[in-house]
């Protein structure tokens, strides 16, 4: 019996020849897929964060440049040049930069006004004004004393009574310590301004804004403060 066993080639036990079971293979593949998915997601999120940072830097610089360009103007021209109303632009109708602007490299939101990413806002209100007519009514202001129907136009008035918590409104803008309902577009001493940039990227809608107050601190020559 013993010698017979020695002569016959010994077969390895069935378990040792089996290799991997289907369950082991599935588990291994699952682990591999999960690991690969996590790795790809990490790569994607890194790329997304990088893009986000780049976009933020672009927006911040663009907003700062808009404010710098405002400072390059005569102080009392800033509101008229950058408000919503092109009619009061210094130099003529529509000659100013206006309240909307583009930023190269940023994609506007689908509902962006005129497809622009940037917007400048002041504490202003749209007011219906009757020009050349004989009086206004129903919340309309009247300019001009002649009789007749006149023409109703929309003007954007810089108002101390505008409500905008972000801009610190309402507040006195012309230094008379009063908050009134007059248009201060020609006599403001302080100009609250918001530069907002809204764009879209892979992560959805993004926003960046700067809120500041511009002031004219120059002293006219010969005037002792």
């Amino acid at each position, binding site marked *: 019996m013993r010698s017979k066993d020695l002569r016959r080639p010994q*077969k390895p036990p069935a378990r040792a020849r089996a290799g991997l079971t289907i369950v082991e293979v599935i588990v291994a593949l699952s682990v591999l897929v999960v690991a690969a998915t996590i790795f790809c997601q990490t790569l994607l999120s890194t790329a997304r964060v990088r893009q986000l940072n780049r976009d933020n*830097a672009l927006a911040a*610089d663009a907003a*700062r*440049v808009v404010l*710098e*360009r405002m*400072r*390059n103007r005569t102080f009392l021209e800033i509101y008229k040049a950058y408000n919503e109303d092109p009619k009061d632009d210094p130099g003529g109708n529509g000659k100013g930069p206006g309240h909307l602007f583009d930023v190269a490299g940023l994609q506007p939101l689908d509902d962006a006004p005129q497809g622009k990413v940037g917007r400048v806002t002041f504490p202003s209100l749209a007011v219906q004004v009757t020009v050349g007519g004989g009086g206004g009514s129903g919340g309309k202001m009247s300019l001009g004393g002649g009789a007749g129907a006149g023409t109703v136009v929309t003007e954007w008035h810089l108002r101390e009574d505008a409500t905008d918590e972000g801009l610190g409104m309402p507040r006195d803008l012309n230094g008379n310590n009063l908050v009134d309902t007059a248009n201060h577009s020609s006599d403001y001493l302080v100009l609250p301004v918001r530069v907002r940039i809204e764009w879209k990227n892979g992560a959805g809608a993004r926003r960046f804004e700067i809120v500041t107050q511009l002031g004219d601190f120059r002293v006219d020559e010969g005037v002792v403060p």
Partner: protein
Amino acid sequence: MSARAGFTVVEVVIAMALVGLVLTKLTLVMDEARRAHQEESISMALDDQAMELLDKIAFAIVGSSAESLDPTPMAPFYSGTIHYQISLGVEDGKPVWSEPEVIGLSEDSGQVYWGQNVGQAGERIVVWANTVSEMLEDELLNGVDDNGNDLADELGLAFVLDEKAVTIRLSLERERDDGHKIQVTKETTVTCRN
């Protein structure tokens, strides 16, 4: 005998061919990834350097007086150098101005330098960057505006004046290991406060 045979020659050849194919593809992908990573790293480093340099220049000009700027090129003209004086404060009701300072591009070395009292006693010169492109990105020396910024043949550092505001344009470049050039261009505008 069959149980001890292992793989046949055909199986081994097929397996080796597949392994070779996979390794070749993997090498190509890795190489591409390495190159992309290098490009991204260089690009980010140049980005940071350009932002820092622009901030430095902007900070110097913002404290100056528009009247002290020299030269005063308006688009389509530009200058690769700007001289200015910054306000140090007020004494006896009069503003006190610094010694004349200059920021410029040395065309020979591609260096951006800051200088004070240049050519006079007490001269100081500091190199702020040395990777500036010969020409601004996408601009060729051909007398026309190639990159659509209203300037023709502008150098890697260009100043343009608009009343009290100075627009600064800057292109930095560096070469990848394989000689491919990577360029980064930045632009900003500052208004003289004094």
